[in-house]
């Protein structure tokens, strides 16, 4: 490989990794909800879109930095998630119908309303937050003068990535070190056993949906410095989240991180080497391949090794 080729490849891998870190945050929210509630939330991307509009609004009207708006948007999304779960999703889970996919269709309805409300309030124009650091970047040649190749690290991408790492670490701490976190994991693994331990399972479901929404809302705030915003962007991210969960294995947080990164890198490679417009196709090729070849997701490969005696 020639120098410039290596440069392109490395640059592609770096962008892929950064993107993947953000994807992981989106995927974790969905996988948590899927694990605990055994439903697929097709309004996930729309919740992210709501988070982005909150960050956009805070920036435009109050000049609050998007990264700072995480601490406002995430709690708001938490409340929105709790309300949705309590008053819409939960009642439907108890309804008997011919098609058990009712709850999935319900979340589609929720997503439609959210996207449409955004159109009504903000019109369907593309928006962005023109932060002054948007084009700032670090260059490899700044630190290593005689470097044979040139690589750059975009400032907002890197900061977003780091924030997503911090949030993921915080979540990991919550899930493994606190009783509430453990109760959520317990509910996902065995509903009845959790009840026997005195876990208020219904409450855990509500909290989980809130938490999943807050996570994806936070991801929205991290995306806004680097991405355009428009009301219909949600659907695309719902699918991304779903592809990640399939890739990583349903309900597995570690899987979601791995899945997110794999997807980010793969998409980045597709857009560099095949063309920008094809990135979504690459995304779904991975998805289809995962469905056919590793039905349990990437984590199932590890697990088989660990449990296989």
């Amino acid at each position: 490989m020639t120098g410039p080729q290596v440069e392109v490849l490395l640059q592609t891998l770096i962008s892929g990794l950064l993107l993947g870190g953000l994807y992981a945050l989106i995927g974790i929210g969905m996988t948590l909800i899927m694990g605990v509630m055994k439903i697929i939330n097709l309004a996930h991307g729309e919740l992210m879109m709501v988070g982005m509009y909150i960050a956009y609004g805070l920036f435009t009207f109050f000049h609050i930095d998007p990264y700072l708006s995480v601490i406002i948007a995430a709690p708001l999304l938490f409340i929105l998630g709790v309300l949705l779960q309590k008053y819409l999703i939960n009642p439907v889970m108890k309804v008997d119908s011919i098609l058990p996919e009712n709850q999935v269709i319900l979340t589609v309805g929720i997503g439609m309303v959210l996207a449409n409300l955004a159109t009504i309030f903000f019109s369907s124009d593309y928006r962005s937050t023109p932060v002054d650091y948007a084009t700032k970047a670090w260059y490899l040649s700044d630190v290593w003068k005689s470097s044979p190749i040139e690589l750059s690290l975009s400032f907002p991408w890197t900061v977003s990535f780091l924030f997503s790492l911090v949030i993921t670490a915080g979540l990991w701490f919550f899930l493994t070190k606190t009783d509430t976190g453990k109760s959520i994991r317990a509910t996902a693994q065995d509903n009845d056993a959790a009840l026997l331990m005195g876990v208020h399972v219904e409450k855990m479901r509500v909290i989980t949906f809130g938490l999943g929404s807050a996570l994806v809302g936070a991801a929205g705030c991290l995306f806004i410095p680097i991405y355009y915003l428009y009301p219909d962007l949600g659907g695309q991210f719902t699918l991304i989240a779903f592809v990640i969960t399939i890739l990583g294995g349903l309900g597995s947080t570690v899987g979601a991180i791995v899945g997110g990164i794999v997807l980010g890198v793969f998409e980045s490679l597709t857009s560099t080497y095949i063309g920008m417009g094809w990135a979504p196709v690459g995304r779904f090729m991975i998805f289809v391949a995962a469905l056919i070849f590793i039905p349990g997701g990437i984590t199932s490969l590890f697990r088989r090794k660990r449990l296989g005696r």
Partner: protein
Amino acid sequence: MTPLLEVKGVSRFFGGLAALSDVTFQLYKGEILGLIGPNGAGKTTLFNVINGFYPPSKGEIFFRQQKISDMQPHRICKLGMARTFQVVKPLQRMTVLDNVIVSAYLRTGSREKAEKTAVETLHFTGLFEDRYVVSKGLPLGRRKRLEMARALATGPTMILLDESFAGLNPTELNESIGIIRKIKESGITIMIIEHHMKVIMAISDRIVVLNYGQKIADGTPEQTRNNPLVVEAYLGDAQNG
């Protein structure tokens, strides 16, 4: 005489744990074979392996001299082996008659013929009165019998019954025993999992006992009853007590 069903050294692992290990037995035409064993001994797993839901991890199964251990359940059923489920699986929103018609369609494409077979089967199993009831609303006893009716309507040579008597009241129990005797008279071979010892001892020609996934006995009801291994498996040893 060649056996109708031949299970040869079948093992089945789940995540490294053996639910069945090296199970071998034969079943001859016209027999009623009882399959017993304590809870968790692997009886239902054995049915699922024979009927094709799980491929065996090791070993082979032959039915009517054909290897069926690599076939899908629907092909095994077409070959003439039908089963019932321990946890009844009626097609909930269909009527009793429609449930049985679905099965009868296995051997015919015509609605008239399928309905005729279904009605005959319903008479045979005493469910005719309930034919227009939506099966969701059927009491358990009838649902268990619907499972049997459905299996019979596929025109089987052999039928696997998984706890068709559990939870029945004494009247229903006697009716079901009567039906099983009638099934045998009609020339269909039966393999049955059952916990009602009285029933299994009374109707079986031969009994296979499983414990921890292994076959620990194979013989007549009389032999089984007096087999110390079986007594221990059921009552547990009391050396510690």
